[in-house]
């Protein structure tokens, strides 16, 4: 067991965790933040996506002790809506961008980071490394959101919701 300090959604938490504990399990089981979901738990589905120092990662493949050791700040879907629903959450509701909702927290966290990446002109394989400042076309959004699967197949509305918010 290891004593760690985890910075989540702007609050510091003092936890005693098994070294083997994933960030996902620490969030869900130790902190009661059940927004991030355990889907495949192998980094294939994206349900567990959270932001670590502003970057989207799979919390199922991240050790809690490593995040604490790096002094990194974690933001979960719960942290997106502290001042009322995030504009992406509103767009998801307006576009009915889900059926069962299980993948939605991961989709939201991923989309928040994706919009940030695009605003900083980070490339994707859809735009190609030579293009500058790619417009967020539907093709771009689909490629950039390819790390999040939706078992219900609500992609059409997920993409539409994200494009509503994209610049």
């Amino acid at each position: 067991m290891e004593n760690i300090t985890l910075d989540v959604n702007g609050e510091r938490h003092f936890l005693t965790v098994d070294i083997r504990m994933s960030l996902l399990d620490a969030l869900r089981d130790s902190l009661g933040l059940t927004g991030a979901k355990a889907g495949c738990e192998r980094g294939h589905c994206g349900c567990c996506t959270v932001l670590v120092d502003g970057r989207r990662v799979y919390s199922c493949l991240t050790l809690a002790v490593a995040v604490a050791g790096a002094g990194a700040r974690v933001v979960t879907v719960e942290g997106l809506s502290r001042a009322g629903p995030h504009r992406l959450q509103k767009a998801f509701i307006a576009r009915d961008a889900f059926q069962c909702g299980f993948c939605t927290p991961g989709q939201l966290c991923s989309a928040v980071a994706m919009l940030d990446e695009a605003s900083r002109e980070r490339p994707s394989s859809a735009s190609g490394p030579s293009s500058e400042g790619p417009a967020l076309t539907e093709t771009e959004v689909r490629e950039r959101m390819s790390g999040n699967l939706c078992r219900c197949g609500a992609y059409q509305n997920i993409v539409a919701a994200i494009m509503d918010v994209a610049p």
Partner: protein
Amino acid sequence: MKPFAYERPSSVPEAVTLVAEEPGAVYVAGGTNLLDHLKLGIAAPRLLVDVTGLPLNAVEALPDGGIRIGANVRNADLAAHPEVRRRRPVVSQALLAGASPQLRNMATVAGNLVQRTRCPYFQNPATPCNKRQPGSGCAAAASRTEHRALMGASESCVAVHPSDLAVALCAVDAVVCVQGRFGPRRIPVTALHRLPGAHPERDTVLDHADLITGVELPPLPMATRSRYRKVGDRASFSFALVSVAVVVDLEGDAVRDTRIVFGGLATKPWRARRAEAVLRGGPVTADRFAAAALTELSDARTVEANAYKVPLARDTLVATLLDACGRA
């Protein structure tokens, strides 16, 4: 998951010593491959030495055209680096063709190079696998699976090498910088990965405590004309059925020099020197490119399930070279 200890050293020598002193130790950085293996029960280290606190995070574009890349640079950051995109587009393209945005945010350059095969039998602890458990046999060789290497395989292992980045790095003459117990050394990336032979459990020439500290890309002006093309079951977030990295230097309508490396076909990134020899001094034509591909693939060993990879590799190389030469 078996219990393990966790250390977070603050210097390279400290990290190397920690691993050198514990036979059951492994380095971990992004952890995307290792955590999966821990969960699957196919890796059971006694100590994880987390190297992400080490000062190996820089990408330096050198005045001579070279680029020095720290081992801990995340795949997403390397792919987005302006000088990498301008001087070595093949490297950026290979990175962006692999995994997903989340994994690219986590995975590091060094971790990418030492990631292990996605052979389904390696990943399944219930099946024999000489790479996972030496001497247990090779379920893949017995199965006639599609997921078998066409080149570089041995009787003991037919597992395909998984990395996209390594394929691109082989095309730009990259050198891997390693810190070991007895000091630093430099290994051409084409010599980093081993053919399986009788010891498939060893993927690379690295010793137990060897730590990759960085990758150097020497000056290679012709690499501004380079491409990576990947063909998979899906357009995104899947491993290569076939991939190809090409670098081309043109002189008029002739190929002056070239680098060609195949991924998805072999037990290591496959530098196609015979194909390069066919192309050098020859014309920029689809026929010539196809002939070069088939020369390289002439001793490919296929089974029915993966025989399609020969024409797929040929056509992928032709299309990628034509694109690189501006003739697409």
